[in-house]
Every structure is written in C-alpha cells, then in structure tokens.
C-alpha cells in the first residue's frame, strides 16, 4: 500500500519539526537551567574575590584573570599565524599541491581532540622545554588548537573582498603587499574578527587541553611562567570533587554568560560583514 504523498509530507513535516523544536528546547533548557541555578551565587564579591579554601569559599577572581590572560596569549600567538596563512592561500598562490598540503594540515589539526593537544602540550612545553605548568605552556597549546579556526574564517573573509578592490590598487601602482595591507585586510577585518571571537569562545570553554598545560593553581598569576587555573578548569574541579555545588553553578553561569556574549558579538559582526559585501 502506498501513502498519499501529501499525507506523507504532512506527517513527515510534523515529525521533523517536532525533532527540531526538541533540539532547540534542550539547548534553551540547558542555558536557562544553569543561569537560574547559578545567577543567585553571582555577585560583585563573587567576581572580584579570590577563591578561599580550594574554592569552598570566596569568589572566582583569580580564575577569571587566568582565563583572560591565557585566552589573550593564545589569540596573540594564533592570529598572526592564522591570518598570515590565509593571506598566503588567497593572495599569493593558486590551488596546487602546496595549498592542498596546507589545507589538509589545517583540517586535520581542527579534528584533533583537545585531550591530545593537552598530552602534547604537557610533554613538549611542560616537561621537554621546561616551561612547567604555566600560562605560557597553556597559551601555546591553546594557540595551536584555535589556529585552524582562525585560518578558515580569515580565508573566507579575505576571499569575500571583491576582486575590483585589488585591481584598483594595482592599477594605482600598488605592490602586492601594499594592496594586501592597505586595501584587502582593512576590508576583511570584521570577518577576521569573527574568527578571533569564535576562538575566544573556544579558549574560554576549553578544559582538557588546559588542565595539563596551565595547571590548576588558584593564586593570581604573576608571570608567563605562573601556573593558572581557568574558569572552566575551576568549574570542573568544583563539580567533580564536590567542593561546592553553589559555587560550581555560579562559575558555570559566568561561563555561559561569557559564551553568550561571544556568540552575540560573532553574530553581529558576521551580519555586518555579510551586509557589506552582498
């Protein structure tokens, strides 16, 4: 027996929509659940006081600073490498064996799980190079992890700059590098920023790669060689070792708000960029 196609379509449509609504509902639930349970614990004191007694008391100030410093270092290292790669791929070469190797490398790097980055960072930076558990080790490891994201988004951003911009610059006697730095890059900045902000989000939320490279010291970092705990690592330790459930919720709420802010910023920039070139 065959279904009436229009009846079949109606049934399928309802089913697919139900699944989509359920997916969206799960996400909305997760965000609201964490915020509802966590926000009561968040106060100015929570954000500006250091943790006391392994996190049983006090706030999360040092972990906020740890997160910011580590993320900033990772971005500072990865951005020049990523944007440089993107400029080379888009402006200085054509599709050939070399670009295929570069792209394959970036794609593979993107697929490597964070725990492998953690292991690698631990053996290379923490032990072999003697940086110890430190912001430097953690920052380098994170930089390697976010590099593929920055390459991909920068490449897309640079590619979407209309070719006419380049032609005009060349016809005015500009060299390749002048064209890239004065015409192409300024136009691609919002797109590149999107990639950087996405990477900030990933760095803030990362745990596995950071816990084995930056360590989990609770004091404020004083140099690149200080061990430092990020918010995600702090949250993981609080939750897993059952140190303080209310502070775990509080930390999670701060994490979620940071991630939401990052997403909204990305979305805003992306729309602005798309509107500019279409």
């Amino acid at each position: 027996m065959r279904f009436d196609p229009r009846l079949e379509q109606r049934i399928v449509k309802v089913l697919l929509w139900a699944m989509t609504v359920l997916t969206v509902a799960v996400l909305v639930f997760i965000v609201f659940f964490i915020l509802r349970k966590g926000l009561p614990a968040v106060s100015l004191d929570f954000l500006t006081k250091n943790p006391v007694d392994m996190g049983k008391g006090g706030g999360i100030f040092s972990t906020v600073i740890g997160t910011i410093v580590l993320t900033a270092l990772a971005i500072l290292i990865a951005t020049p490498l990523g944007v440089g790669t993107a400029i080379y791929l888009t402006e200085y070469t054509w599709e050939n064996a070399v670009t295929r190797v570069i792209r394959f490398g970036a794609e593979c790097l993107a697929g490597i799980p964070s725990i492998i980055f953690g292991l690698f960072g631990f053996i290379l930076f923490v032990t072999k190079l003697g940086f110890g558990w430190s912001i430097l080790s953690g920052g380098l490891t994170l930089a390697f992890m976010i590099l593929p994201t920055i390459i991909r988004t920068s490449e897309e951003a640079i590619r979407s700059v209309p070719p006419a911009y380049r032609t005009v610059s060349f016809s005015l006697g500009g060299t390749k590098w002048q064209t890239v730095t004065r015409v192409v890059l300024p136009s691609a900045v919002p797109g590149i920023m999107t990639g950087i902000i996405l990477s900030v989000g990933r760095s803030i939320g990362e745990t596995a790669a950071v816990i084995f490279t930056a360590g989990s010291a609770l004091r404020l970092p004083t140099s690149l060689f200080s061990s430092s705990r990020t918010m995600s690592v702090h949250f993981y330790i609080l939750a897993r070792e059952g140190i303080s459930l209310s502070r775990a919720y509080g930390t999670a709420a701060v994490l979620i708000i940071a991630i939401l802010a990052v997403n909204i910023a990305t979305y805003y920039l992306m729309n602005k960029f798309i509107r500019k070139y279409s």
Partner: protein
Amino acid sequence: MNRLERKDRLVRLALLAVAFSAVSILAVITVFMFEQGTPIMFKYGLKNFLAGSDWYPSEKSFGLWPMIVGSIYVTFGAMVIGVPFGLACAIVLTEFSSKPVRRVIKPVIELLAGIPSVVYGFIGVVILVPFIRETFGGPGLSVLAASIILGIMILPTIISISVDSLQALPPAYREGSIALGATKWQTVRMALLPAARSGIIASIILGMGRAIGETMAVIMIAGNAVSVPGSILAPVRTLTSNIALEMGYAAGEHRQALFATGVILFLIIMVLNTMANLTSARRKRDRG
C-alpha cells in the same frame, strides 16, 4: 628591482613559512605522540595492548580493549541520537522553514557549539544521571548517559555541514522535481538528500570524530569503570577518559601507556579525518 619589489619578495617567503605553521604543528604532534607512545606498545606486545582486557598500570598490565570498546559504544550511541536529530534540523532549516524562523533557530543551534563540554558534563551529572538511575535502574553513570550527552554535543557539527551541503545544491534540482509534480518531501527524499549525500556523510564522520575525542563531559557521566559494559546502563571508560583520569599522577611506563592510548585515539581520528576529507573532495569534484 626596486626596494618595494624586494620587500614584496621577502614578504612572500615569510608568508609561505607562516602558511606551513599548521602542517608543522600537526607533524610535531604526530612525532611526539608516536615517540612517547609506541615504544611501550611494542615492549609489551601490540596484541596485549589492543586486545588485553586488564588495565592495572601498577602491575604493568596495560590492556586497552575495554576502553576501545567503550569509545566505540558511546560513539555509536551518540550517532544513534545525533544523526536523526541533526538531519531533521538540517532539513527543516533548509526546506521546511521560513526565513524569519531560520534566523531564530540557526544562531540558537550555533550557540550549542559554544557551550563548554564541562557544562554538558555537569548537566549530565545533575539531571540525566539521576533520571536514568531512577527510571531504568543501575548506577546512572552509564553508556546511555554518555551517548545522550555526546549525541547533543555533535548536533552542531552535523547540522552546520549538512545545511551547507543542502544549500549548495543547484536550485534546478528543487525546481525540476517540483515541476514534475513531486511534493516537497518527495523532493527532499528523492532528489536533495541523495545529491547532498557526500556532504552529509562528511558531517556524520566529523561528528563521529568529535564524539570519540570528547573528554571532560564523558569523564563526568560515564562512570569510568574499566570493563567491557554488559548493557547500556553499565558504566564505561573511553580512551579519552583513560588519559585524562590518570594523567595527573602517572609516571614512567604508566605515563607512556597513556601516551599509547593517545596514539590509538590519534590514529582513529586521523582515519576519520581522511575519510571526511576524501568524501568532501569527491563532493567538489562531482559538482565540477
């Protein structure tokens, strides 16, 4: 050759060097993982490592079989949940929704990708695990809990790549099918899904890679017992959890055995990456 041209040439060389950063990092990671992890595998025999089911690092017994099976179980479970829901969302987003609706749903799903894995793990611990324990019995920390949470975590990967490949189809496919009198669903099922097949398969393979590589969420909800799970309600330990749980205190051969665990994980991921890469390469070629 004037000064500017010389500078241009230097810049080109510098950029070429920078462009190889990702490849070099990949190479260095590969070398380090293998250098640290393979000697111990051969010392105790590859067969004992892969097929041995006893993991007692203090007694020099390093069998990874339970963890290999564990990773396969939770990844398979994640696929069972993630693939249908992911494809449903992708089809709704591209074919069955209006533009304003899409503009609400898409960013929400992208947000899903941004939520840290520890938060997913925590949600699993405080909501899902007690629910499973009370409803189905068992410890709650289980293959089932890990599969559900991982299934949710891989949704953004599956959705975004499937949406891209559905949207990249030439409009003629849709128009042709509709013009022949097919309903929208018949068009999706018989024209669009088959045409976008390689992109969808690539999205599933990449989702698999994410599930198998996920660590922190799984540690929190899978129970981590070293034994081949007898049912979906039994606790399980994955390759990734094995590394993360013991890395903090491991030394000597124990640490090397954890690197060996990493090597196996690394190999699985590279195979999956290459597969995804080949399918999307075929997709590009097919489309000319």
